[in-house]
Every structure is written in C-alpha cells, then in structure tokens.
C-alpha cells in the first residue's frame, strides 16, 4: 500500500502549510487532545510552521501522565507483594509515585514485567497458576478494548489468578472539563483519531454545539495533523463549530461496534481523578459488576496510601495548556526523563518529555 508512505510527503505538507497561512486572518488557539499528536507536532516542528498567533495548546491526552498518583502508589504496593507478577506497558515503569517508581520495586526484587499486550499478561497468568498476575490497565478509549477483551478471556477461560488494576480515562468528559475551566483559552479541538476509531464520533456534536468549538477528528502523520489544523482554521474563520472527520481512513462515524459492545459489557462509567487536574465527573471506566472479581483493587486491599506530589512540578498546568513545559522552572534542571519529577516528563507522549527530546537545545539558545 503505497499511500501509507505518502502521508509523510513533504511536498504535500508544504502545500497544506501554505493553505493554512492563506486561510488565517486572526490569532487562534486550538488544542490537540492526544499525546501522540503532541509528540508528532513537536517532533516535526509543526507548531513552528503555523502562522504567528495560531497556537497549539497541548492537551491532557497522555494516559501515562494523567493516571492518578494514588493508583500509581497502589500499583507500587501491589507489585511489591510477595508472589505477585506485576505486568505493565513499559512507559509506566518510570512514572514517579509518592516514593519510588515501578523500576525501584523491580530492582528491590519485585517481579515487574513489561508486556506488549495485556494478552501477554494473561498468558503469563496461565503459565504461572500458583502466582497472582496483575496487569496495569491504563489508557484511553483506544486501549480499553484490549484490556476489556483480556478480562473477558480470563473469565471465559476460568483464569482466577489474573486481575486488572484499572484506571481508564475518557476523552469527551475531559473536553467538557477543559471548556468549563475559567482559565480556558481553547477555541477548537483536534480530536484523537484512534480514540474515534473505537468510539466513533457521535459523542462530539453535543460538545461542539454546547461550547461553540469546532472539533476535527485528526490522525497522527504530519499530513494528517496539518489537514486537521487546516480544517479547524477554516471553520474558525467562518465562525462555524462543526464536527468533521479528517481521518476517514481509520475512523468510521459509527466507530467499531464489536469493540464498543465489549466495552459496554466489561466496563462501567465512573468518576476519575486525573493527575495534575483533579476529579472529572464520569471521566473513567472501571470493571462492571459482572467482572468485579478481576479487580486488583479488591483482590489486594491496599490501604493507608498517603500521596505526595513533588512541590516543584507544574504538570497540572502543562496538562491543562496553561503553561508550556519550558516555563516550569524545573524543566531540564531538576526534572529530566532520567529523573522525572512529574509524569509528563516520562512518557514519549508527555508534553514535557517531547519538549525535552526535540526542543531543549533551541530553548537553551533562546534564553
């Protein structure tokens, strides 16, 4: 499929940039919700190609970054229990808890394993029937179907030594929370393409109407992002606030019905605290009553957790788009990817880590 390569086509990219410039008459501030898009924007310098005054505000769509500190601390406590095999996606291992991180637990002798897919964790559970195997089930709507299917399989196959530490978060309630904030400067959203591959786009028209913001479903290749920005600017200039799908090759309006049916069965909506932001009503999923026996929080009664966030870290403001990472005094000094003070410095999708990887030298020259 030749077209996959063509989405990196620099000639077309240049044309799209020219179109954006030609369409822009005023300053606009738009938010890309997804951390994968933030990474791509900073890595390719897309924000620096935009007309003066067109600003990309980096949103809270990095699941690693917003996983609440209390859940990280619970993960650390469970992973340290004797006999437990704690499985996780790799980027959770350096996320700082109140005291240490999962790497610390591992080097102190804990059995912490990095897996590619939650199904790998289920496999480990079947191979080790005398051990408790826990998977750290975080992520947005993109990741939830994988975790849901794994729990469904555990139940179907009768794997009783497997459980899920669940901290799923949902995009639409976060968009509402951002718009409700008094400090909000966001005038439009690039919605996260792969979230919509699963969920479709039906949740967005009410948000676009209620807050008067264009919402353009956008992919991750540089061309996709430029096209999302172009369509957003055209809408803003015309005073429109519609939902558009600029990523139809991977997003159908109705989403993925099979995945949504599984999500409906395995999860139910709950209030969720977002690290750095606070509680957002109805913004998460937890296991439904049918699957509660697989809830690691119930299986391991972890109590007495006292959370303690670094006083230097301003990741909450970064995640809400109120400051850019380098405006944090600790950026690149006390806080680096090797020694992160906040979760936004850990994941490749965290804004602080993206700025550190691709902008650090420019920023030093500027100051």
């Amino acid at each position, binding site marked *: *499929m030749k*077209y*996959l390569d*063509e*989405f990196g*086509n620099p*000639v*077309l990219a240049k*044309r*799209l940039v*020219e*179109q954006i410039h*030609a*369409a822009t008459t005023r300053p606009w501030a738009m938010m890309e919700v*997804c*951390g*994968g898009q933030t990474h791509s924007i900073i890595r390719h310098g897309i924000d620096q190609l935009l007309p003066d005054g067109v600003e990309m505000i980096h949103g809270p*769509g*990095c*699941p*690693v970054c917003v996983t609440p500190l209390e859940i990280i601390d619970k993960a650390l406590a469970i992973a340290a229990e004797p006999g437990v095999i704690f499985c996780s*996606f790799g*980027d959770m291992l350096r996320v700082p808890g109140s005291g240490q991180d999962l790497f610390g637990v591992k080097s102190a002798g804990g059995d912490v394993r990095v897996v*590619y*897919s*939650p*199904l*790998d964790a289920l496999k480990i559970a079947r191979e080790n029937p005398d051990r408790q195997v826990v998977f750290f089930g975080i*992520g*947005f709507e*993109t*990741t939830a*179907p*994988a975790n849901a*299917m794994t729990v469904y*399989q555990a139940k*179907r*196959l009768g794997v009783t030594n497997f459980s899920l530490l669940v901290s799923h978060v949902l995009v639409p309630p976060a968009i509402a929370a951002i718009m409700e904030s008094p400090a909000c400067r966001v005038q439009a959203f690039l919605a*996260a393409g*792969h*979230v919509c*591959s*699963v969920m479709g786009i039906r949740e967005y028209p009410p948000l676009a109407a209620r807050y008067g913001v264009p919402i353009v479903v956008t992919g*991750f290749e540089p*061309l996709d992002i430029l*096209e999302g920005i172009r369509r957003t600017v*055209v809408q803003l*200039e*015309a005073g429109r606030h519609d939902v558009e799908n600029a990523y*139809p*090759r*991977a*997003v*159908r309006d109705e989403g*993925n019905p*099979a*995945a949504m049916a*599984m999500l409906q069965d395995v999860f139910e909506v709950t209030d969720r605290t977002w690290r750095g932001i606070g509680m957002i009503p109805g913004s998460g999923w937890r296991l439904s009553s049918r699957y509660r026996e697989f809830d690691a929080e119930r299986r391991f009664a972890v109590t007495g957790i006292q959370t303690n966030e670094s006083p230097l870290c301003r990741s909450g403001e970064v995640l809400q788009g109120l400051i850019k990472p380098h405006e944090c005094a600790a950026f690149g000094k006390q806080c680096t990817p090797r020694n992160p003070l906040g979760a936004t410095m850990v*994941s490749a*999708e965290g804004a602080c880590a993206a700025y550190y990887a691709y902008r650090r030298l420019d920023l030093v020259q500027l100051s």
Partner: protein
Amino acid sequence: MCLAVPGRIVSIAEADGVPMAEVDFGGVRKDVCLQYVPDATAGEYVVVHVGFAIQVLDEESARQTLANFEKMGILEEEFGEVPR
C-alpha cells in the same frame, strides 16, 4: 502508548476461541488479536494498538484524502489563489 500503527495481515488462525493474526509492520511481525475486526482478511491493513486490531484501514479513503491534497495544490497553482 496511545499510538496505533498500521500493519498488514499475513495469516489468520484461531487460538483459545479468538481469531489471531500474524501482522507485518514493515518487517517486524507480531501476533495480533482480530476479535474487533472479524471480517478482516489476509492481505488487508489494520490499525493495531497493544496487540489488538481496532479498525481496518480504508484504502479508498486514504487515496481520496491524498487526491484532495493534490487537488488543492493544483488549484492554487492554476488560479494563483487558495480556495477557502
């Protein structure tokens, strides 16, 4: 970790009652669960995230998007202005 990547289905087989595929990502091959794209066939491209295909890539839409990009550029060159 929210990124999903496109890959080509090489072969499909069932495991534990679930359709699984070998998927090629530009040379790297991985096992991918096809539960959510039950109609996908070998040779098709799927968007894969943490070992699960979440959507079949629509070749026709991709072509159309690229054709639109091309057209915008051509219009601009021919008429010396940008369609809004």
